[in-house]
């Protein structure tokens, strides 16, 4: 979705003056502000203090490494990008001010060799342990490999690590948990995701947008539309292309269908994790029917290949939508009602895996997880763009932050999605794509995936090839809340429940 309105006066302006940024560049989907390395720390202080949400942090590698911070100015309906050129190998430790930045700091160190000053230990995020100097990176190799300082069992301490994975239950993605436990409660929990790192950002370089979308859809298949949309939007805003409104309506329908089936799948997973097979069966019936709706409407059960740079490749089969959707959602609704009336199920959900509002803000969580913890962040409303201008969704928010709250948020969102689909379908969606103009550029794109805000930043060279693509699916953010949730007075058997309620993918994190 491309942001269309100009830079407003007021808070943003005052922020910019506070940052002391000389030149402001609008367009490319966001307000872009150059910030010299010397003033970066104060700028981050100001922005974090003013309640700006650090949505992403990444680096690009030209003749020198450039650090880009993406801020969600959720009150300003805007994204703000600060650009900082790093001349030496260090930059001020941003995660001390905005803790959400930590994992990205680690990633940037792995990929570009620049690290936050102060020498705090950095975890390994994407690179496998055996990655040598010749292992492909986006930038230069780090001075020394990132220390793996995940929760070692200190002898003075009395906890031990319970290894779990990477090959886990049947039909789930590969993921390694280090579960540090005192024998009863969970003391700490950490994840290794490099088992699934496929180097997508590295692959995307040199591709044309069309091929890039093919790969981007497969970065996180369960939110293919959202990720593809974010990349497409980034390309469009980089090149200044205007997708036809009908195509944007189509994207909206696809995105909401995606949300619908994902929440059904999450419901099935919740039932499985609580051992309620009958509920799982009911939820899976709903899921399968919704997937068939997808296939009937867009020709693919998981909505691959709908979004195209500049528009969409396929239009929705509205007849099939009218026929299929009510039935599919009816199944979902009935299963949900039955579940809400099943005490043995609800008791497992209540007060399990609590994420406090403070944690959610601190770690920059997004999507249903954040909204269940009382943080009403939703890029469809905070940074609205077509087609959501005319059709704003009602955001579902809960305060308790436990699994039950996340479940309820998902149910409310499902209902809202059905309503939205109705509106969007009524507004006359269609197919078609605007041709992409030539000339390079860089732009930011975003879409609200079922897991939350999916961001993408793409820069293209003159003949339309990608020079750097940054993918940030929502999973990247929300896995960071997972260990906090798992730690809050839980026992082993709660962890699958919490994981199901987060409903994240490893593929999206490792990409």
């Amino acid at each position, binding site marked *: 979705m491309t942001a269309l309105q100009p830079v407003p006066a007021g808070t943003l302006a005052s922020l910019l003056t506070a940052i002391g940024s000389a030149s402001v560049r609008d367009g490319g989907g966001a307000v872009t502000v150059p910030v010299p390395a010397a003033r970066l720390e104060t700028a981050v202080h100001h922005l974090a203090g003013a309640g700006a949400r650090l949505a992403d942090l990444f680096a690009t590698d030209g003749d020198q490494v450039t650090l880009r911070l993406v801020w969600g100015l959720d009150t300003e309906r805007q994204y703000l990008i600060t650009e900082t050129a790093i001349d030496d190998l260090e930059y001020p430790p941003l995660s001390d001010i905005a803790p959400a930045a930590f994992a990205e700091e680690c990633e940037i160190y792995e990929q570009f060799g620049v690290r936050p000053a102060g020498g705090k230990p950095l975890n390994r995020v994407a690179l496998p342990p055996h990655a040598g100097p010749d292992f492909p990176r986006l930038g230069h190799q780090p001075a020394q490999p990132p220390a793996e300082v995940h929760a070692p069992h200190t002898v003075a301490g009395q906890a031990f690590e319970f290894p779990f994975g990477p090959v886990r239950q049947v039909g789930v993605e590969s993921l390694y948990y280090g579960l540090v436990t005192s024998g009863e409660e969970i003391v700490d929990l950490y994840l290794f995701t490099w088992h699934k790192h496929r180097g997508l950002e590295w692959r995307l370089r040199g591709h044309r947008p069309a091929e890039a979308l093919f790969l981007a859809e497969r970065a996180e298949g369960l939110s293919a539309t959202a990720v593809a949309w974010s990349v497409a939007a980034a390309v469009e805003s980089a090149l200044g292309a205007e997708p036809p409104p009908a195509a944007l309506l189509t994207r909206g329908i696809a995105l909401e269908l995606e949300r619908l089936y994902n929440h059904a799948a999450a419901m099935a997973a919740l039932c499985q994790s609580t051992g309620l097979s009958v509920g799982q069966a009911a939820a*899976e019936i709903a899921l399968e029917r919704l997937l068939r709706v997808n296939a009937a409407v867009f020709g693919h059960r998981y909505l691959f290949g709908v979004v195209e740079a500049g528009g969409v490749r396929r239009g929705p089969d509205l007849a099939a939508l009218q026929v299929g959707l009510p039935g599919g959602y009816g199944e979902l609704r009935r299963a949900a009602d039955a579940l809400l009336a099943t005490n043995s199920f609800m008791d497992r959900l209540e007060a399990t895996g609590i994420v406090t509002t403070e944690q959610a803000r601190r770690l920059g969580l997004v999507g249903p997880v954040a909204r269940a913890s009382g943080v009403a962040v939703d890029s469809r409303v905070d940074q609205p763009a077509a087609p959501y201008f005319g059709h704003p969704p009602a955001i579902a928010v809960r305060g308790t932050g436990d699994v039950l709250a996340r479940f309820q948020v998902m149910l409310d969102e499902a209902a809202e999605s059905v309503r939205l689909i109705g509106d969007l379908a009524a507004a006359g969606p269609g197919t078609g794509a605007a041709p992409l103009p030539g000339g390079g550029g860089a732009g930011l794109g975003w879409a609200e995936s079922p897991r939350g805000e999916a961001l993408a930043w793409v820069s293209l060279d003159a003949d339309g090839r990608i020079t750097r693509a940054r993918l940030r699916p929502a999973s990247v953010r929300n896995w960071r809340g997972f260990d906090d949730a798992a730690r809050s007075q839980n026992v082993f058997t709660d962890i699958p429940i919490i994981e199901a309620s987060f409903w994240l993918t490893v593929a999206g994190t490792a990409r």
Partner: protein
Amino acid sequence: MSGGSRARAVAASPAARAPEGDVLAARLRQRVASQFGRSLHIRTLDTGSCAVCEQEIRLLAAPHYDLHRLGFFFTPAPRHADLLLVTGPMIRAFDVAARKTYEAMPGPKLVVATGACALGGVYPADAFVYGAVGEILPVDVWIPGCPPSPLALLQGLLVAVDRLAEKVSGLTFTAGGDAEPPAREAER
């Protein structure tokens, strides 16, 4: 690793797979079919999929498809598994785990590569991925699709235990009749 040579052959060139490899595979499948034909336990292995193949595999057990009626069962323990259902392009960082899982299974055992990634479609072999499951594990049955629908998975599993004949070798993927190419075909 017993199937190593076969795996290499696959890697070398898909077209030129050693025929005696086929014979071996067929014999193995018959053996498995005779022993586990009506009760086969499946362990899944994700070597870097995009999480959609996993979703489809989970749906195999859902009411709409219910693979249990065909005598297939999922088991989390490779020790109890007769068939390894592999998704993803076989990430290099994961090969240790993949080999361990395969070696943890008792013989006779089958490997089914699932999805275009696992068949070398999406990711070319490079520093991140081997590009195909066959590079590491001795695959017996290949199931194309992105993702392979639960029906396709069912058919593949039944082929794996010789309860269905594979039909892909019989397909030509050519359609009869001919139409005149429109003029606008020239540019673009």
